[in-house]
């Protein structure tokens, strides 16, 4: 199993009482809540934290893209990836990912990712997403075109990377006479592509297709949901006539490690609750604009009468559902062993910071996790390799 440290880079100084006057930490929350001096300190601190993960031996570091919100301050994730490309030495840098349907010209992503891949001598992981529903309100992009634009933008980027340029691209939304990406990507034929998702059959069918075999990442979902989609990926691959490897599936989950279970829960509590109850807050119309989910998926949601971001969640709820990994090194080793045996993911992406978690606790958790949890799986995987050799 490989370990990639994930960072959302939230605006941790958000006034927690904002929700007395505003119904969302997204789209419409006035940016007067943002203080650039605090932002300056946070950005640099967050980069330090990812650099620490690299130094401690994580296999990769991850950034992502969200717009006009307090939940994650990386509208242009390439800026952070660029900063990390020179300061990290070993870790892969995963941009998870660029929200393709929001772009008028997706060639910018082909270029940006190719640059990062060249600077880092091939340490880039290319993530493609549709963004969350709120992005379509912020960016004015039409959610009814989200799926089609995603697929077409992806095809354009892959063509830019893999076909000798100049080539022609003739799509419905994008049309170019000269697709000719300078620089070409360092990794050939192209950087590994990862597809983060909150879970969808359509996405799995597309990502697992033999032409792609992309790594599918389940993000911020309960363990039961994770298991369902990982199984779906394997079954879909079988249906396509091949056996999916564990490298094709990963799990992104906020993670906190401390000396004992009791200390871990006590230290993490206010910060993880801030993430779920304050930073993720938005009404359903913002989260699910029309077309963001297919009508079939929406009908599923409707029939399940699933409550969306309603009610406050406690750390106990989150740990019970498995949307948050928290505990001593022994507990985390045990849980991960169990989940991995049952579910079989090849990548774990711990979000090393969440909500208001302060730097000292992030540092302590990252160091402990790197020292006491990661090596356990390295030894085990090496033994497994010897056993099968």
């Amino acid at each position, binding site marked *: 199993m490989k370990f990639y440290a994930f960072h959302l880079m939230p605006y941790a100084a958000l006034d927690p009482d904002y929700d007395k006057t505003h119904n969302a930490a997204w789209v419409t929350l006035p940016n007067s809540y943002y203080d650039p001096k605090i932002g300056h300190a946070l950005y640099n601190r967050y980069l330090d934290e990812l650099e620490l993960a690299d130094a401690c031996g994580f296999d990769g570091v991850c950034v992502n893209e969200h717009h006009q919100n307090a939940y994650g301050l990386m509208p242009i994730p390439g800026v952070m990836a660029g900063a990390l490309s020179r300061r990290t030495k070993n870790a892969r840098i995963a941009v998870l990912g660029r929200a393709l349907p929001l772009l008028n010209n997706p060639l910018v992503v082909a270029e940006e990712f190719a640059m990062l891949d060249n600077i880092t001598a091939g340490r880039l992981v290319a993530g493609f997403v549709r963004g969350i529903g709120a992005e379509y309100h912020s960016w004015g992009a039409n959610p009814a075109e989200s799926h089609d634009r995603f697929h077409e933008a992806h095809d354009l980027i892959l063509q830019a990377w893999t076909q000798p340029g100049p080539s022609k691209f003739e799509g419905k939304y994008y049309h170019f006479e000269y697709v000719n990406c300078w620089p070409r990507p360092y990794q050939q034929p192209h950087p590994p592509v990862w597809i983060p998702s909150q879970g969808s059959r359509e996405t799995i069918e597309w990502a697992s297709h033999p032409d792609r075999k992309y790594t599918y990442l389940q993000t911020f979902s309960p363990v039961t949901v994770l298991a369902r989609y990982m199984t779906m990926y394997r079954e879909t691959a079988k249906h396509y006539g091949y056996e999916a490897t564990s490298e094709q599936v990963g799990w992104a989950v906020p993670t906190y490690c401390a000396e004992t279970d009791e200390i871990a829960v006590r230290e993490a509590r206010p910060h993880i609750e801030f993430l779920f109850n304050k930073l993720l807050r938005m009404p359903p119309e913002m989260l699910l*604009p029309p077309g963001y989910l297919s009508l079939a998926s929406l009908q599923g949601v409707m029939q399940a009468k699933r409550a969306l971001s309603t009610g406050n969640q406690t750390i106990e709820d989150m740990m019970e559902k498995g949307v948050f990994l928290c505990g001593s090194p022994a507990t985390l080793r045990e849980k991960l062993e169990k989940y991995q045996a049952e579910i079989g993911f090849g990548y774990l992406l711990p979000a090393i910071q969440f909500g208001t978690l302060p730097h000292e606790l992030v540092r302590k958790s990252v160091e402990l996790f790197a020292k006491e949890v990661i090596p356990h799986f390295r030894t085990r995987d090496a033994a497994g390799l010897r056993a099968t050799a």
Partner: protein
Amino acid sequence: MAHRETFETVNGCKIRIMRGGQGAPLLYLHGALGVAAWMPFMERLSRRFDVIVPDHPGFGASDTPDWLDNVGDLAYFYLDAMKQFGLSGVHLAGASLGGWIAAEIAVRDCHPLKSLTLTAPAGIHVKGLSKGDIFMWSREQFLRNLAHDPKLGEAMLALPVSDAQQFTDMKNRLATAKLGWQPRLYNPNLAKWLHRISVPTLLVWGDDDKVIPPGYGPAFRDLIPGSRLEVFANCGHVPHTECTDKWVETVASFMQGAA
């Protein structure tokens, strides 16, 4: 007056049509919420006209064809439909999104038309004059914002909603987003073409329209040659439902005068 419900296929797209009454043909184009039933204003008009109410492609019980991308596609669809149904001298009426479609039909070809009635139409943008963000509104906010009289909003909210109706609501919302998410409920080119409308045109607006503010009324009036604007006092975005008597009287006498 009894109305009939049929399915017709135009350009490979099957649509549901409600039709009732006798007289000159009156084609009514519904707004973003669709038409769940034969409404009182339709019944009243059917005493004087042959009232034809289709579900737009992409809406209600109609198909969603692959070719549906924008309101221009619907304008050509209805021009083809009028031809296929052998309709001429048509009184064309549309409300909100349907008003936008009607205007797009009229700028393309007025030959099949006798008159044009636009009730609080979408379709153009006036700088500084914001429309309501219907995609950010919950269903409850949407229904409350439709009318001037809060009691009408309450009454609509009190109606039971079946699972089938809920699914149709989502389908209508999706089609509306496809047609009008960006730019938001207008065609930047339409204002340049409105001078091409050559049939008598009536504009109706409620003075308390929270979806498309009444300031759009004079803007449309100034762009459509010889058009007339009627502003209803104490009325919201759906004058045909909220002020049915006055709307039917105004619209019917306008159409009969144009005949």
